């Protein structure tokens, strides 16, 4: 087989951050920041190259070690992976820029011990998380996906405990145990699938699976495990404390990207591997839980008293929308593709908007030392850019007309009504209203004159790029709406609804 170097581009989004993480760990100190920033353009470029190739040449497959699929592990990029990679690159780049300011001189003294340079610890962990995400989005092997899931979890845990507070440690332990339970359930599914079909490759599994009892059990185990890792209601108990107590850039990463990792696996397995006769009877379960998550998460966000907790509960709610896909997208039908691509579009839009909101909350916390919602008016005068970013991100999150979230929700509503799911349609609308309600609690602060100007509180100065990067991400969430057509076209490449020419391209 002639070796083409062009498809090697799939390796770089994984290897570049991983290698940099190692260098950042060894050199430490200021070098870790420099290296962390330096690798951002490389990763973005690598992602762009992958997307470009997929756009022009269809899905790409790369056999690692030149051992083709059933024996070795393959990387696989199609439209869905590219969309996820682009999301990860975009948010990762912004968070990297933001973190330079956020961790600058942020040495936390812990109980008389030598001060720890949180920034120097942040970069290796974050770069490994980035690498793990890309490895996850590109993997075509169900066991390798397990390893990437664990890599993702451990990196996330390391990032959550960076602050070292008791709340963070407790949240991290809760998160770790929930995540471990989730990956074990997933791994049990992998064991059953390997035992029954003797292969781990997603494509060969998709071809060889037959509807039998072991596959049904594997589906249930994997589904529950991945739902736990994606924090679907009622398995969301670990998410708000972890996302609420982590440092702001970390919360943005967790809410925007990390939970999407396990969702991505579920999405892929559901539509690429499991036959319809299994998934069909189960469609309502994730969809109904998703609907419940929308309502429950929104209610909790309405009563939260801290901004970060509000945003974290909003994540619980918004993740609910993602699970509507299993109820609405039928393989084979054209509305199926509409619903499927709408949900992915919604995930992208949510990642940007939620990321921006968490970064903004982090800036507020950094400046004012608190993020109590009722005391926000006093802060809003000092941070006009940040509050503007909150406004823009809120528009993106509520799903007002020009945004991608609007396009996505509108499509979902249409499909739901067309399929006769009146209940789901009502929840979609209601969720939007509730989101508006809890986000207005925050926005109100920006338009309210502070009653009492608190002179006792000393406000810290904030580096400009922290504010600008937040605003940039918020604007991306807004502009994604204009780009939704090309994104949907990208998603069509290699999707279960794409014309079957693609299969011949990769024999």
């Amino acid at each position, binding site marked *: 087989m002639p070796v083409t170097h062009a498809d*090697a581009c799939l390796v770089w989004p994984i*290897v570049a951050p991983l290698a940099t993480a190692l260098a950042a760990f060894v050199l430490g100190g200021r070098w870790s920041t420099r290296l962390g920033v330096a690798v951002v353009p490389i990763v973005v470029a690598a992602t762009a190259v992958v997307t470009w190739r997929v756009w022009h040449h269809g899905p790409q497959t790369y056999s690692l070690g030149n051992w083709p699929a059933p024996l070795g592990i393959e990387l696989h990029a199609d439209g869905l992976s590219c969309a996820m990679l682009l999301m990860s690159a975009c948010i990762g780049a912004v968070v990297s820029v933001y973190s330079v300011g956020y961790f600058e001189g942020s040495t936390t003294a812990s109980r008389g011990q030598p001060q*720890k340079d949180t920034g120097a610890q942040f970069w290796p962990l974050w770069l490994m998380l980035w690498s793990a995400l890309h490895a996850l989005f590109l993997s075509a092997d169900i066991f390798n996906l397990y390893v990437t899931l664990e*890599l993702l979890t*451990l990196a996330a845990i390391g990032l959550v405990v960076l602050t070292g507070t008791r709340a963070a440690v407790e949240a991290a332990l809760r998160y770790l145990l929930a995540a471990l339970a989730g990956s074990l359930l997933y791994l049990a599914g992998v064991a059953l699938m390997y035992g029954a079909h*003797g292969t781990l490759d997603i494509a060969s599994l998709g071809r060889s699976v037959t509807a039998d009892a*072991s596959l049904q059990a594997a589906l249930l185990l994997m589904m529950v495990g991945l739902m736990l890792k994606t924090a679907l209601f009622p398995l969301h108990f670990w998410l708000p404390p972890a996302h609420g107590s982590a440092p702001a850039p970390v919360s943005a990463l967790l809410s925007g990207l990390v939970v999407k990792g396990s969702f991505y696996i579920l999405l892929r397995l559901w539509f690429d591997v499991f036959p319809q006769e299994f998934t069909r009877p189960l469609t309502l379960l994730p969809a109904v839980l998703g609907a419940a998550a929308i309502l429950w998460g929104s209610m909790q966000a309405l009563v939260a008293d801290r901004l970060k907790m509000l945003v974290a509960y909003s994540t619980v709610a918004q993740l609910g929308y993602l699970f509507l896909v299993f109820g609405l997208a039928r393989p084979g039908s054209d509305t199926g593709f509409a619903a499927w691509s709408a949900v992915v579009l919604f995930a992208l839009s949510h990642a940007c908007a939620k990321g921006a909101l968490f970064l903004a909350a982090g800036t507020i916390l950094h400046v004012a030392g608190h993020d109590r919602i009722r005391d926000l008016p006093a802060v809003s005068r000092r941070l006009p850019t940040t509050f503007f970013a909150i406004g823009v991100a809120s528009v993106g999150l509520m799903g007002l007309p020009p945004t991608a979230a609007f396009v996505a929700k509108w499509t979902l509503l249409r499909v739901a009504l067309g399929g006769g799911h009146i209940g789901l349609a009502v929840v979609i609308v209601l969720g939007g209203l509730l989101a508006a309600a809890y986000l207005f609690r925050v926005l109100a602060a920006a338009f309210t004159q502070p009653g009492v100007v608190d002179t006792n509180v000393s406000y810290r100065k904030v580096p400009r790029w922290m504010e600008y990067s937040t605003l940039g991400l918020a604007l991306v969430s807004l502009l994604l709406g204009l780009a939704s057509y090309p994104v949907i076209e990208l998603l069509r490449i290699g999707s279960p609804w794409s014309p079957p020419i693609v299969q011949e391209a990769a024999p």
Partner: protein
Amino acid sequence: MDSSLAWFDAILTLTLVVVALRVLFAQDLFQAIVLFIVFGLLLSLAWCRLGAVDVALAEAAIGAGLTGALFLNTLATTRRHGDQAPPAETIDRKGAWVDDKLPTLRPRPSTPWTGRLAFGLVAGSVTAWMAAVVVPLAVSSDAPRIAIDEAMLRSGVTNPVTAVLLNFRAYDTLLEVAVLMLAVLTVSSLTAGSARVSKALPSGPVLTSFVRLILPVVVMVAVYVLWSGTKAPGGAFQAAALLGAGGVLLLVTDTQSPSCARYLRRVLLVAGLAVFLLVGLGGMLGAGRFLEYPPAWAGVLITLVETVLTVSIALVLVMLFVGTSPTGAEGSARASDETPGATPLVSRERTS
């Protein structure tokens, strides 16, 4: 012969289950942990019976040896608060979630019967459901598997498990080493704990000379396990686990342990992953793919990667042990300076 083996299997598996239940329900945690160590040893026997000797080696070294030491160490630190050591229940309360949203039972020394009933129902129904699926799989004569025989000839090694780990699925192994790295990063960032002087038994001449005698053997056996890994059960992880266990032995005795500079230690920690990555990228440059070895070089390259991995992973395992240790006499100096770029307090004051 077959009947005595069948009985052997039956007793072994029954004991495994009973010990597992006892780990969860034994009143005191120390007993649970000793039983967990026993569980690891039993499991290692089970791997041997299943013909998975590579796994048995790893389980014996990691599962029973190191994990047990980690747990014992952790439990010891929770009782380290002088003479007013908290009884088990207080640890329960402290250890349980504070804002309790998990379906936990009330912290009591022993689980009440309702809890046991609920536990039994859940465990029983999950078992029944999964057994209904696994039994047909286990008795079916048709066992699909990935064909490796032909590829083995080009793999550079003759032990199929090593071939899968370091050649066919080397990418998994690469990421797995990254997982270990992450664990070290996280654990060492958590280690800035209190320095409490250990009131444990001092290590007398017997222990010291035992360690001195056994360490060379540990190193020798590790080298043997590493070297034989290409053609017989064994390999980098098993060797590293042995070396790591040796390091732990050295750490817990008062013997002079060879200390190395912080920088060197960091380099050694990442060396395994770095060399692995470099070899992978080298495969790419040589007109091939990432992690591809030219067949003529495969054996040499795999041995190289395995050797460096052994050193790195051994160090990682020792660091993980340090991370769960009380930062007492030997811990503080090693652990607190482990955070990359940590600035000593003194030099900060001087600059400001």
